[in-house]
């Protein structure tokens, strides 16, 4: 790997200063499972690596009133092992759990998964579907933005120089609200998502959907919040007609490319399939959360 400098600050302010002051490119290191791959391949050539794992609060999960707060550098295994998160957002946990292997899980963070800005990131669609926000620290202080505002294109974020994601804030689910995340890959594990779909629904006592978010991954330059798909669900139960509309809406909202992981036609079809299947799981889970 090319030469690089490394620092491991112990406060957020020191991290911001180091990132802002770097003459050349500075990259944040949390889990390293994307960054180190890119350093080795030459895709990223930073001068400075800022390791955020020694900053108190960057790793950890806590509750603040109606919100779950997840530190930006929290590894996937910690998220999957947290009973509260598994119960509240099984879809987010599913997404996190699908990132790579057990070994990758031991390190990979959702801040990294988000800021790496791959359209195929597995943890991002369900966090967006849950209306999660990201708290960003930078030279101008803190700001909180919807997670979907961070990624602007493949490999690109809206973060300015000196900024990094400190934590995620996710509103606790209401009664009869739950989620699901499915992805399609050619093997059973170890592949980047060909298509990913997160569905987050809220139901009333009769099983009718009162609120929904459907978020697709890997079918556009960024994750897509499919308004039309959500509209297909809201006000309806998950019957065959609703499923057909959902399938159509999901397919219609895709803008995929053909690459070594899938063709345009295939991705569009699978988007519809996954939307139906994820919705079925989300509805079932939501109904059980009376």
């Amino acid at each position, binding site marked *: 790997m090319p030469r690089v400098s490394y620092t491991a600050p112990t406060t957020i302010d020191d991290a911001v200063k180091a990132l802002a002051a770097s003459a050349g490119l500075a990259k944040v290191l949390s889990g390293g499972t994307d960054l*180190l791959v890119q350093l080795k391949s030459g895709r990223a050539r930073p001068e400075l690596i800022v390791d955020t794992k020694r900053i108190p609060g960057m790793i950890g999960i806590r509750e603040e009133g109606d919100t779950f707060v997840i530190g930006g550098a929290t590894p996937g295994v910690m998220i999957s092992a947290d009973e509260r998160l598994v119960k509240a957002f099984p879809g987010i946990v599913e997404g996190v759990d699908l990132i790579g292997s057990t*070994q990758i899980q031991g390190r990979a963070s959702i801040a990294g998964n988000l800021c790496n800005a791959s359209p195929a990131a597995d943890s991002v669609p369900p966090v967006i579907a849950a209306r999660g926000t990201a708290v960003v620290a930078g030279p101008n202080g803190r700001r909180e933005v919807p997670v979907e505002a961070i990624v602007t294109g493949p490999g690109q974020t809206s973060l300015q120089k000196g900024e990094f994601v400190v934590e995620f804030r996710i509103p606790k689910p209401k009664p009869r609200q739950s989620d699901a995340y499915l992805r399609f890959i050619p093997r059973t594990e170890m592949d980047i998502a060909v298509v990913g779909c997160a569905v987050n629904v809220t139901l009333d006592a009769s099983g009718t959907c009162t609120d929904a978010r459907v978020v697709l991954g890997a079918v556009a330059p960024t994750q897509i919040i499919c308004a039309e798909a959500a509209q297909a669900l809201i006000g309806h139960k998950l019957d065959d007609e609703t499923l057909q509309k959902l399938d159509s809406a999901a397919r219609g909202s895709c803008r995929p490319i053909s690459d070594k992981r899938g063709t345009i036609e295939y991705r569009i079809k699978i988007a519809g399939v996954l939307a139906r299947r994820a919705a079925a799981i989300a509805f079932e889970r939501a109904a059980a959360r009376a």
Partner: protein
Amino acid sequence: MSKHHVSTVINGEPKEFLCEAQQTLLDCLRDEMGLTGSKEGCGSGDCGACSVICDGKVVCSCLMLGVEAEGRTIITVEGVAEGEKLHPVQQKFLEHAALQCGFCTPGFIVAAKALLDENKNPTEEETRYWLAGNLCRCTGYDKIIRAVLDAAAVMRGENPPSPAA
């Protein structure tokens, strides 16, 4: 550029080494500390041959910088046995012939140990998914999975029959 001085605990022993920031933990284990048991199969976290346990979690050492090991506890394949006494996973790998060329074996031993430290009674499916990040090209995984499930039984105090004779 001057090197980083790292203090860490490896296989139960305090160890210090010097490294440049861009050297991975795998590079440091193999080239600075002579611990060549962990292998590089891909360098990109896709094969698991470099697996080590860091602060209780199994990780790919090729995707960790050596400097990140500061103050952490690392277990490599060289630290799985206790002196002459093999860990049940190692013993069962031998009895089941769960290795052919043996290159992926250190990574599997470490990952399997991590599984059994956490889950005393994994199913076949759980075991396969836990180990999905460890590639083996020789065995087709059959005997590896059998060995791990048998090792779990041994660790639960059971006495499964051995295929070795």
